[in-house]
């Protein structure tokens, strides 16, 4: 896995100042809609408690619930597959398709298949894959990954999408009206739905008690993709399990409100077994999840229901963009999940946070995101993955803060020496903090001196 430096990638994003502000405002608007929707629900906080509790319970008995789910889903005529990692997952999906001679697959949103890099795997084997969520189709046509898990094309302007559609779908040159472009995509995707030999979806929730899987969309693309072709493949991480049908009420009341401020998604489809003369395959994937379950701090983020609220609210995400994280799930939750996969490649992500805690405040399943980010920072230090500049600075700060006399001396020196130094030296490359910021003017007296002057010796 290739590494990414969040500060470097973010610097490229903020180089276009107007665009960075536009991105910030677009996401803040979504965050505000979430606030309106959640504050209209009188039992919102109790719902969050319940959701967190149900997830914690499920994870503590995940093996039992997985077996119960498998038993019930099988009894309803679905075929349940198990995949330990991405390679097994891709091989299972390809096996199902190739056995049936399927060459055209329509997909609705699934972060898991992004995680497993399913599309290039299938394309290399001669299968045409069409992402059918509008935002995902846009980024697919641009050969880009999604930049946000709920709003895949949030980084693009309508003029760019208009130009893309002009080139690839034959829309009018210069047309950028979202309504016109959406209609063009509808016609284009309709043909793909009608031609497809199989439909693949993600899974929002898998109900152990009934053996059903639930898929939520606004566009209806998952429904088009599962009701026209005879074969439906549903891919899920094992953490999507919940115990009972009634638990869906808790999560569905939280999910769309947290994601986009809607009271519920337009379509919330419950699949229990295949349709008449059709097939339903459910692929349950581990790919590092059982290992994460072992860690008593980081296991809590397995409760994530992928609403994206932590991204919309995060001051760093809003101003640095989804691609600055270099991981399929960006933002605060991605900065916890990514180093769990590869701590060395993603060592900068836990630092892409001001630790303001806004993510934890909006999380519908009460993941303590900012605490986990802090825990990852400690882990990065322990594993020796901190860059040298930070390591040295931390070491120095540790010394200075340990001895009161040294702290006083350092302050005294800094106040006299720094103003006398040439600017080029103070803001030299070693001062990474000062690259985008001005140091405050040096005060004439310290707090200690001020206190002593006003109150006398303590």
């Amino acid at each position: 896995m290739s590494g990414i430096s969040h500060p470097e990638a973010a610097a490229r994003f903020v180089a276009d100042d107007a665009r960075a502000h536009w991105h910030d405002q677009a996401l803040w608007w979504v965050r505000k809609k979430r606030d309106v929707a959640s504050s209209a629900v009188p039992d919102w906080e109790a719902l969050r408690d319940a959701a967190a509790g149900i997830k914690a319970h499920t994870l503590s008995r995940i093996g039992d619930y997985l077996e119960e789910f498998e038993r019930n889903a099988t009894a309803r005529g679905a075929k349940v597959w198990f995949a330990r990692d991405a390679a097994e997952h891709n091989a299972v999906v390809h096996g199902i398709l190739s056995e049936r001679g399927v060459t055209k697959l329509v997909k609705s949103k699934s972060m898991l298949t992004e995680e497993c890099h399913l599309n290039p795997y299938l394309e290399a084997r001669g299968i045409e894959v069409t992402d059918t969520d509008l935002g995902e189709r846009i980024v697919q046509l641009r050969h880009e990954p999604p930049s946000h898990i709920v709003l895949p094309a949030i980084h693009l302007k309508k003029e760019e999408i208009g130009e893309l559609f002009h080139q690839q779908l034959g829309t009018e040159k210069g047309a950028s009206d979202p309504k016109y472009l959406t209609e063009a995509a509808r016609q284009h995707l309709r043909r793909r739905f009608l031609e497809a030999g199989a439909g693949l979806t993600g899974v929002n929730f898998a109900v152990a008690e009934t053996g059903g899987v639930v898929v939520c969309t606004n566009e209806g693309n998952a429904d088009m993709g599962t009701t026209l072709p005879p074969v439906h493949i549903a891919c899920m991480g094992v953490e999507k399990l919940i115990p009972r049908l009634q638990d869906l009420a808790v999560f569905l009341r939280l999910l769309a409100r947290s994601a986009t401020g809607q009271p519920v998604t337009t379509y919330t489809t419950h699949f229990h077994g295949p349709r008449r003369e059709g097939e339903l395959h459910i692929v349950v994937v581990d790919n590092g999840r059982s290992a994460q379950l072992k860690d008593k701090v980081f296991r809590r983020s397995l409760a994530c229901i992928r609403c994206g609220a932590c991204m919309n609210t995060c001051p760093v995400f809003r101003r640095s963009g989804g691609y600055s994280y270099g991981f399929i799930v960006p933002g605060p939750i991605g900065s916890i999940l990514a180093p769990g996969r590869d701590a060395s490649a993603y060592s900068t992500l836990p630092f892409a946070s001001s630790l303001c805690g806004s993510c934890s405040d909006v999380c519908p399943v009460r993941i303590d995101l900012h605490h986990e980010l802090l825990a990852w920072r400690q882990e990065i230090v322990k594993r020796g993955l901190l860059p040298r500049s930070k390591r040295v600075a931390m070491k120095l700060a540790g010394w200075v803060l340990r001895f009161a006399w040294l702290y006083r001396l350092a302050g005294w020196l800094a106040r006299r020496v720094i103003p006398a130094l040439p600017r080029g030296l103070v803001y030299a490359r070693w001062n990474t903090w000062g690259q985008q910021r001005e140091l405050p003017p040096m005060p004439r007296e310290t707090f200690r001196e001020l206190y002593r002057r006003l109150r006398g010796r303590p």
Partner: protein
Amino acid sequence: MAAREEMLAALRHNAPREVPLPDSSRLGVQFPDPVRQYVESLRSVGGACLLAADRAAAQRAVADLPVYRGARRIVSLVPWVGQGNVDLAALADPHDLEGVDVAVLPGELAVAENGAVWVDGRSLPHRAVFVIAEHLVLVAEARQVVNDMHEAYARLAAREVGYGLFISGPSKTADIEQALVIGAQGARSCTVLLVG
């Protein structure tokens, strides 16, 4: 099946000590007038609700809908509402549903807090009909309006749940610059008729 056994073993081995399931029996919201709230919720998600006192009024209300009057191919799975001219039971292939203008489908429950209607898959000879039709009319009894999702699932759990879905308003997207566009991949409009 090595993958299955290995996954189950790893999950069991790594799971924390059992945490009890929380009590969620006290969750929920009660509206003074659930039907009125339903009308408001559906409006907020881009749908329209019509109230009809009885079946005759429901039939008239549907006949007056502009999307119904302009329709050529109509599916009606509610015997006393609308005049269907596409026989779903006689249709072998769901692909032939492409081009259906209006589908009138029975709804079992309507949820006041979010405008959703539960459509039971057993009432659909072809599942595709609810999403492939250009316009959707859902018909439910006014006394089947519940306050919230907890009540909805309590009703659904009373018997075996198969394929089915909640539909809340028309198909929509905001994937281009967050501009809301109605009619993404599925129905371009969603009218809910509450009868009684």
